[in-house]
C-alpha cells in the first residue's frame, strides 16, 4: 500500500507518532550544547539540564554529581519513554519497537559473557548493562561455559534465539570467539530487522532500509578495520558482513581482502554517499572515523523525520537520543576531568 499510508496509518500509529515527534522536539539543540560546553562543573551541567526535559530526572540528585549518575538518569528517561511507547503500541509497531532493543540485548549478552570470562562480579556487570537490552534470565548467562550451553540454557527463551543458529559451536568461549559471536549475531539481527521492515512495506520499508543499510555498511567497515592484523581469515571476515546494504555484494568482496586502512578508504570512496565521510579524514587516520560516521548517521536519522506515516521515526528517535546521551557523557567526562579543550572532539550536534 505504498503511498496510501495516510489513509490508515493514524488509526493505530497516529498517537504514537505524535508522541515520538513531541519527544524529538525535546532533543537538545545546538544552543544547549554550546551552553553545556561552557560549563565549569558537573553542577553547572545539572543546572542547565534542569531547564530541559531531563529536569525532573535530575532534580532530586544530591550534589556532588558523577558522570555516571547523569548518564544513568538520562538513560532512564529514554527507557521510560520507550516503555510508554511500547505499552501503547499495537502490532506491528510493537514488534518494530522490540526489534530496536535487540541490538542492546546482543551487547548485553556479550558484556556479561566477557565479564564472566574475566571473572567479574555478575551484579556489577548487570549494572553496566543497557537497560533497554535486559531480559529475564540475563544473569543466568554467567552459568554458561560455551556457546552451546549459552544457547541451550538462556538464549533459547529470548528473541535472539534464531540468530544463534549460525554460531553454535562447542568451543569454549574466549575473547575472539565472543567478538565473532557478537558480529554474527549482529549480522543475523540486522538482516532479520531488514526483512521485517521490507515485510511492513511502504514508507517504513523505504526509510528503514536506508537507515539499516547504512548501519550494515558501517559495521562492515568497522569489522574490516578491527580485523586487520588479526588471525581472522578473509573468508571468516566475509561471513560477518550483512547480506544487504550499499556495499553488498561487490564492496564486501573488496573489503574482505583489505590489508590496511588506506585500502578500505579506496574501496569506500567508490561509493558516493561514503565519499564525503572519508574525504574528511586524512590518509592513514581512523580515529575520527567513528565521529564522521556518527555525524552522517545523525544527519540521516534527522531526515527520517521529514516524512510522515512510517515507523522509521521511532528508530530514528531512539538512535538520536542515544547519541545525545553519548554526547552528554562525553561533555560531562570532559568537564569532570578538566579536559575542556577536547569537548568538541566527540560531540555530534544533532540540530
Amino acid at each position, binding site marked *: 500500500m505504498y503511498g496510501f499510508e495516510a489513509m490508515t496509518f493514524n488509526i493505530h500509529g497516529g498517537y504514537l507518532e505524535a508522541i515520538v515527534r513531541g519527544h524529538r522536539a525535546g532533543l537538545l539543540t545546538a544552543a544547549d550544547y554550546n*551552553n553545556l560546553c561552557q560549563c565549569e562543573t558537573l553542577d553547572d551541567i545539572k543546572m*542547565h539540564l534542569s531547564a530541559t526535559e531531563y529536569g525532573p530526572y535530575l532534580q532530586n540528585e544530591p*550534589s556532588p554529581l558523577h558522570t555516571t549518575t547523569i548518564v544513568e538518569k538520562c538513560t532512564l528517561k529514554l527507557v521510560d519513554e520507550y516503555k510508554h511507547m511500547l505499552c501503547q503500541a499495537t502490532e506491528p509497531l510493537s514488534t518494530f519497537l522490540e526489534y530496536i532493543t535487540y541490538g542492546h540485548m546482543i551487547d548485553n549478552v556479550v558484556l556479561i559473557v566477557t565479564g564472566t570470562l574475566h571473572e567479574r562480579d*555478575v551484579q556489577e556487570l548487570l549494572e553496566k548493562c543497557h537497560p533497554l537490552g535486559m531480559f529475564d*534470565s540475563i544473569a*543466568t548467562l554467567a*552459568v554458561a561455559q560455551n556457546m552451546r550451553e549459552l544457547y*541451550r540454557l538462556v538464549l533459547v527463551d529470548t528473541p535472539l534465539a534464531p540468530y544463534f543458529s549460525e554460531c553454535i559451536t562447542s568451543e569454549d568461549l574466549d575473547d575472539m570467539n565472543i567478538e565473532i559471536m557478537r558480529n554474527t549475531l549482529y549480522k543475523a539481527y540486522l538482516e532479520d530487522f531488514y526483512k521485517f521492515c521490507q515485510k511492513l512495506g511502504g514508507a517504513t520499508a523505504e526509510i528503514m532500509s536506508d537507515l539499516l543499510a547504512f548501519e550494515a555498511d558501517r559495521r562492515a567497515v568497522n569489522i574490516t578495520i578491527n580485523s586487520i592484523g588479526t588471525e581472522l581469515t578473509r573468508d571468516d571476515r566475509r561471513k560477518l558482513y550483512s547480506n544487504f546494504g550499499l556495499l553488498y555484494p561487490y564492496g564486501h568482496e573488496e573489503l574482505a581482502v583489505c590489508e590496511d586502512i588506506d585500502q578500505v578508504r579506496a574501496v569506500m570512496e567508490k561509493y558516493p554517499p561514503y565519499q564525503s565521510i572519508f574525504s574528511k579524514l586524512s590518509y592513514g587516520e581512523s580515529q575520527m572515523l567513528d565521529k564522521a560516521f556518527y555525524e552522517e548517521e545523525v544527519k540521516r536519522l534527522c531526515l527520517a523525520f521529514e516524512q510522515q506515516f512510517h515507523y522509521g521515526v521511532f528508530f530514528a528517535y531512539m538512535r538520536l537520543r542515544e547519541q545525545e546521551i553519548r554526547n552528554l557523557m562525553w561533555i560531562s567526562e570532559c568537564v569532570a576531568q578538566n579536559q575542556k579543550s577536547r569537548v568538541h572532539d566527540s560531540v555530534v550536534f544533532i540540530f
Partner: protein
Amino acid sequence: MGGGTHRPTMDLLRSEPMQLVQLIIPIESAHRSISYLGDLGFFQFKDLNSEKSPFQRTYATQIKRCGEMARKLRFFKEQMVKAGLSPSTRSAISDDVDLDNLEVKLGELEAELMEMNANHEKLQHSYNELIEYKLVVQKAGEFFHSAQSMAAAKQREVEAQQRGEGSIDSPLLLEQEMVTDPSKQVKLGFVSGLVPREKSLAFERILFRATRGNVFLKQSVLEGSVTDPASGEKAEKNVFVVFYSGERARNKIVKICEAFGANRYPFTEDLSKQFQIITEVSGRLEELKTTIDVGLVHQTNLLQTIAYHFEQWSHLVKKEKSIYHTLSMLSIDVTKKCLVAEGWCPVFATNKIQNVLQRATVDSNSQIGTIFHILQTKESPPTYFHTNKFTSAFQEIVDAYGIAKYQEANPGVFTIITFPFLFAVMFGDWGHGICLFLATSYFIIKEKKFSSQKLGDITEMIFGGRYVIMMMALFSIYTGLIYNEFFSVPFELFGPSAYGCRDPACRDASTAGLVKVRATYPFGVDPKWHGTRSELPFLNSLKMKMSILLGVAQMNLGIILSYFNAKFSGNELNIRYQFLPQMIFLNSLFGYLSLLIVVKWCIGSQADLYHVMIYMFLSPTDDLGENQLFFGQKFLQIVLLLAALVAVPWMLFPKPFLLKKQHEERHRGQSYALLENSLDESDEMEVRHGSSSHEEFEFSEVFVHQLIHTIEFVLGAVSNTASYLRLWALSLAHSELSSVFYDKVLLLAWGFNNIFILIIGIFVFICATVGVLLVMETLSAFLHALRLHWVEFQSKFYEGDGYKFQPFSFASLDAEDE
C-alpha cells in the same frame, strides 16, 4: 503617555500609569532591598543579563545552593509522606532563621535522617531475612515431614507385600530393587530458599536445562506476600527445595539462584534442630522488632520536628531563591560597588517603593542610599489593572482574548454587566437562575475555606468564576421574570393576567381567542401566552427584535469606546475618518432598524419590517404603502442610505493619504526642527518620539490595512448584527427544552397516577434539568456570550496587544510552585 497624568484616574477603564525606573542599589543593601520590594510586590524587574546563560550569572552559586536546599526539603517531604505526617500548616514563625544557618541545619538534619534510614533499612533487611528464613524452615519442614511419612507408608506397604509373598499382583522386579536400593544410595544434597512467584516457572525451566533434568525441585506457594529483603518491596514468593547430586550441579544451582534473585537459606533435616532454629529465629525476630520500633519512634520524632518548621523553611528557601534570581537579572556596576536594576512600576507606588528602599538602606546599615531614577523610554509599558476578587474574573475573560494595550479602554469594565446580561438573555428562567445562584453562593460562602485548599481542575474553574456565575444567576432571575419562565411553569407573580375569556364558561379559549379584560400585565410576558398556539410566534418576534436592539446598542458602545481611545491618545485622524463614518454607517442601517422596531412597538403598527429594510436598498424611491410607520419615512430612508454609501469611501480613502502627508511633513519638519523649535525642547522631543515609531512608512501597506479594516467593518456590521440573533436562538432553545422536560417527563409521569412512575419521572426530570439545562446550557450560553464579547464587541475598538504587569512578589510565589 503624557495625557494620562492630568486626567482623573479611572480605575478599571484605563490601566495604571506606569514608569520605567532605574534603581542603583549599593551591593551591601541589595539583598534586603530586593526582599522588601518582593514583599511590596509593585516592581517588575527587567532582565538585564538575558544574553548570559544561567550559570554565568552573578548569583548562580547562591541559586544553586537554594536549589540544593529545595532538594533536601523535597527529601524531607517525601520522608514525611512515607511516615504519614503532614507539614503543620501554621508552624512557628520565628524570623531569626537566615539562609546560612538554615543550610547547615538542613544538611545536619538530612545526614541524621539518612543515617536513621540506613540503620532502619539494615535492621529491616535482617528482619525480613529472618522472616523468610522462618517461613522456609516451616515450609521445608512440612515437605520433609510429608515426604518421610509417605516414605514410611510406602515402606510399610512394601513390607506388607513382602510378608504376603506369593501374591501374583506384586511385581517381581520391585523386590529386587528394594533390596539393592540401600547399597546404591547416593547422598543427595539440597538447597532451599524463596523465589519470586512470577519467576518460579522460568527458574524451574532453567534448573532443568542446566542440570539436564538431574534435579528434583519441590515448590510450595506461600500464602500472602513477603517483603523482599533486598528491595524492601512486598512480593509473592514460593518456597523451593532443590535436591541434587554432585558438587558441580550445586555450583550451577547456586549461580542460578543468584541470577533469579532467589534467597537461599540453610536447612537441616533434623527435626529437633529445626525446632531449635525456629525458636532461635523467633527470639531474634522479637528483638529486632523492638529495635526497629524504637528506631521508628526516633525517626517519627525527628520528622515531626521537621514538619513543625517545614512550611517556614520551604517558604524561606523559595523566597531566597527568587531573590537571587532577581539579583541575577541586575547588572553589576564596573566598580562592583552597586547593582543597577531597571524595571516598571506603577506611578502611584513610587512613594511606597522609595520608602521601602529607604528602610532597606537603614536596616542594612549602608552609608549610601539607593538612587531612584525615572527613565524616559519609548517602550510600551506593561498593562496593570488593579482588580479585586470580584472584578478579577471579569478581567480574566478579557485577558483571555488579549491583554489590553497600555492605557487603552478596557472592555472589562463593561463586561461586568454586559456579559452576565447577555448570558441571561439566553438563559432566561428564574427557576434555573435560583438553582445557579444557590450553587454559586455555596462557593462564595465557603470562599475562605476553598481558597486555601487545592481543588480539582473543574471545581477550580467554577470557583475562580464564582462571582461571574453569581452575576449570571442574578441576571437570569431578572430575565426569567421578564420571560415569565420558571421551569416552564407560568406564574402570575405581578398580578392577574390581562387576558380572559369572552364568556365565563371559557371553552373556546383556544379557538376563538381571548380578549383583554384588565390592564396590561405590569412586568414581563403575560402568563396567558404560555401554552397557546401563538406563543412561539409572539415570543420569537419579541426576542428577535430584542436581540437586534441589544446588539446594535453594544456595537455602538464599542464604536464609542474607539472614540474615547482616539481622544485619549490625541489621534484626531481616527476620530474624523474612522469613528464618524463608522457611527454613520452602522446607525443609518441598523440604528434605523432599531428605531423602526421601537416605533413599531410603540404605535402597534402591523408594518413588515423585513420588507421595509429590503426595499430600502432595492428600490428606495418606491412608495412604502401600508408599511409606512411615520411621516417622512421615505425621505429619511433615502438620506440614511446615501449617508451609509458616503461613509464607506470616507472610511477607506482619507486616512491613508493623510497619514502619508503627515509623515512627509514630519520628515520635513524634523530637518527644520533644530533651527525653528530649538527653544521648545519638549516639543522637539515629542516630534522625534512620534516619528521614530513611523520610521519606515509603507503607503501600500497602510492602504491595504485600511482596506481590510473597512471591508471588515462594512461586512461585519451586517454579519455581527445577524450574529446577535444567537441571543434569540439560544433563549428559544432553552425555553423549548425546559418545556419538553416539563411536559413530556414530569406531566406525563404525573398522568399515570402511579407513585412509582411519578418517582421515576421526578428523578428523570431532575437529572435532565441539572445535566442538560443547568450544566450544558450554562456552558453553551456562556460560550456564546463570550463570543459576542470577543468578536462582536471588542473587534470594534480593542487592540489587545499589550503585555501584563508581572511584579516581583512573594505573594505569588507559593501559588506558582504548587
